[in-house]
């Protein structure tokens, strides 16, 4: 077990998903991560479905559980003077604060970067906001869908004759949270070398700008203004589209034939000599004749079951995918043999299956902690008494006053 970041302490002030994902990526590598939640309701994500094993419950939202592994939870009302003073105490003991409040909110509480920097000059404040801390849109209201729109991912997804189609499941929050974790790691390296902290400003919109399709460089180098349905859409039969088999869908590509002409290889594999027609040779040609091509290929795919097709084609060095459901992903023998998933024991829900870090380190899943997401305020006592030195009496008073 590596525990890469087990000499780092971070405080997560974020509400909702993007800051939570950033903190999770660092917490999973061993950083001591204290999640600060408002007393009463806690993180907004605690109240969002899908809920696990029953009716809505703030400790059982899968959104919350997925994004908050290996953290300790405390409650703290930042809108009280005492709450602000207690946070400053935490700041003295922390390397990193992660926040995803609207620009200006922390300043309005007397907890802006300048103040926090005076309290702890080594502190890294990582702020994630929809549009960044500066610029004319910084106070615009936003949402996952709006970020996908303005950031430019949305225009490229979906079919050409339909409206643009969003990616599911808060991918903008995930993408920006990942960027914030990268920036925080860079700042930690800098802090350890120089003793200096800093304020990192991560924009969700900018995270989407760099998400394919529709890259700015494709436009500025070659004048391409992305079209929906071109790559991965309905017209790309052999280049990423999803095609029916007997029992599901598979994804075909023209990659990986080791220099042989891809369409010749597919023609041989599918026993479809028609695919050798020169009109199908280039991607442009295949797009032009996509309906004819689709009919030919799907006619053959109906003879196959998805996973048998996958194995047979991959053994021939063709590159294909099966459109797997979450059930198939959880049961995927390849991921199982690699140990990609982690089983964490939740006190209320039992064993939960979590995806790991996204890579293995020295052959093992590098997620070192074993905590599922915390219950609201689960660690108030240990953090307020052990880290900040409050007495049991003070803790009780602050709890009664709604500060904690």
């Amino acid at each position, binding site marked *: 077990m590596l525990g890469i970041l087990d000499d780092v302490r971070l405080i997560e002030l974020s509400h909702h998903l993007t800051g939570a994902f950033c903190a999770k990526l660092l917490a999973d590598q061993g950083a001591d991560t204290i999640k600060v939640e408002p007393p009463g309701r806690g993180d907004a994500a605690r109240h969002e479905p*899908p809920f696990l*094993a029953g009716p809505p419950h703030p400790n059982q939202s*899968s*959104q919350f559980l997925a994004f908050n592994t290996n953290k300790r939870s405390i409650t703290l009302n930042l809108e009280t003077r005492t709450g602000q003073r207690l946070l400053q105490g935490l700041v003295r003991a922390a390397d990193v604060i992660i926040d995803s409040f609207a620009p200006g909110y922390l300043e309005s509480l007397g907890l802006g970067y300048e103040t926090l920097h005076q309290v702890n000059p080594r502190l890294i404040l990582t702020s994630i906001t929809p549009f*960044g*801390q*500066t*610029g004319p849109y910084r106070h*615009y*209201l936003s*949402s996952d*869908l*709006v970020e996908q*729109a*303005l*950031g430019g991912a*949305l*225009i*490229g997804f979906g079919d050409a004759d339909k409206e*643009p*189609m*969003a990616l*599911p*499941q808060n*991918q903008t929050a995930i993408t920006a949270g990942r960027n*914030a*974790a*990268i920036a925080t790691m860079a*700042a930690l390296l*800098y802090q350890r070398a120089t003793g200096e902290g*800093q304020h*990192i400003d991560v*924009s969700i*919109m900018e995270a989407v700008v760099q998400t394919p399709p*529709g890259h*700015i*460089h494709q436009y*500025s*180098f*070659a004048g*391409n203004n992305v079209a929906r349905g071109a790559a*991965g*859409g309905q017209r*790309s039969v052999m280049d990423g589209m*999803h095609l029916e088999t007997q029992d599901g869908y598979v*994804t075909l590509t023209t990659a*990986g034939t080791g220099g042989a002409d891809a369409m010749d290889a597919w023609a041989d594999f599918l026993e479809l000599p028609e695919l050798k027609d020169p009109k199908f040779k280039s991607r442009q040609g295949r797009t032009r004749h996509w309906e004819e091509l689709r009919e030919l290929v799907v006619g053959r795919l109906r003879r196959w079951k998805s996973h048998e097709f996958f194995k047979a084609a991959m053994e021939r060095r063709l*590159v294909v995918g099966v459109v*797997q459901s*979450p059930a198939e992903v959880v049961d995927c023998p390849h*991921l199982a043999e*690699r140990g*990609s998933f982690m089983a964490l024991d939740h006190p209320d829900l039992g064993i*939960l299956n*979590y995806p790991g870090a*996204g*890579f*293995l*380190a*020295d052959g093992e899943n590098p997620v070192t902690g074993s905590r599922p997401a915390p219950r609201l305020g689960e660690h108030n006592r240990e953090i307020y008494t052990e880290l900040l030195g409050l007495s049991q009496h003070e803790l009780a008073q602050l709890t009664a006053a709604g500060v904690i």
Partner: protein
Amino acid sequence: MSRLPLSGVRVLDLTWVVSGPQATRLLADLGAEVIKIEGRNRGDQVRRMTFNPRVFATRGMFVYFNRNKLGVSLNLATPEGKEVFRQLVTLSDVVIENFSAHVMERWGFDYAGLQAINPAIIYVSMPGFGHSGPNVDYQSNGPTIQALSGQTFACGFPDMPPAGWGYSYMDHTAGYYGAMAVLQAVYYRNRTGLGQFIDLAQLETACSLMGVYILDYTVNSRSLRRPGMPAGNRSTHPAAAPHGVYRCQGEDRWVAIAVSTDEEWQRFRTALADEVWHQDPSFATLWGRLQHQDALDRHVESWTSRRTQQEVMRLLQAAGVAAGMVQDPAQRAEEDPQLQARGHIVDLRMEEAEGGRVRVDSLPMTAAALPHQEYRPAPDLGQHNGDIYGQLLGMAAGEVDDYVKQGIF
């Protein structure tokens, strides 16, 4: 140049195409010295790819992914080439590649081989299926990984076949994860003196984005695809209506609108001014709007389709409603005031381009330790052979020339 977070870190970059070069682009932007190593005859195949054969036949995508890097040519199939690589490994912190699983092993440079040369080396390998498991010998690319990870299954409109995440979503995402793994490994090496082997299976990276679905399935055992799911552009959590993408004036012009609470709905109504349909009491509550979502969406689109994207966004944001234009690359590169104000779109020097510059997006994070600086253009194949082999390894100029003639460089 000011100190950057990865100043003093040397990366031997054997990556090609998209996912690996994306990782090393980020490392170079963060200050690492990235030495891109390519075969003399083939080079990174992206050098030959192009979006438009008439324009920048050998550049384009390559320039974007390989800015700020140094370029050397090296034939790793020759004994002399292997010896030169060994010398580079002794002087480097990180080796990174995205070949299929056994390529480095065949050259004698798997992790054990690299460790024997430099015990503290950080080795990052990024094949689609990783270095273990039954599919280890299979190849992959963006769309197949997206399909296998469950991402594709989760995307689309209700009662329609699964839709994709475009072509190369995971190539890019894996690149970011590769960069993050390097940053963490360098941090750990600085603490402990120990290197490590990062085995980054793109399939595993894709699964790490799917935690909510994995949990929902493992505990609730229900299918993600059920009536009304996946929800397309509608939002079930949090519940919201109107929530979608609506047509505007102009060809293929759209706006995204997200209204959730009843308070937001009242603000939305103030922007509609003289319209009457929103007074319908069945729309007054979130529950009612969810029940009558088809009718609601038709009304909203009748309003947006008579206006430009800009006008809809401006009116709704002024009223306090989350709304944004569905922007295409040209709009982001040329017009977007937010990206311009933040300096996110920068010019990259490129002699062949009109005016000697092209526009690209910069590092998507801003901080004092990450100053925006002039990016160096991507290297030509072997452009820095003299700097690296001559100055770093101390080879004589004549020797470098001989190696070029013999096909070793």
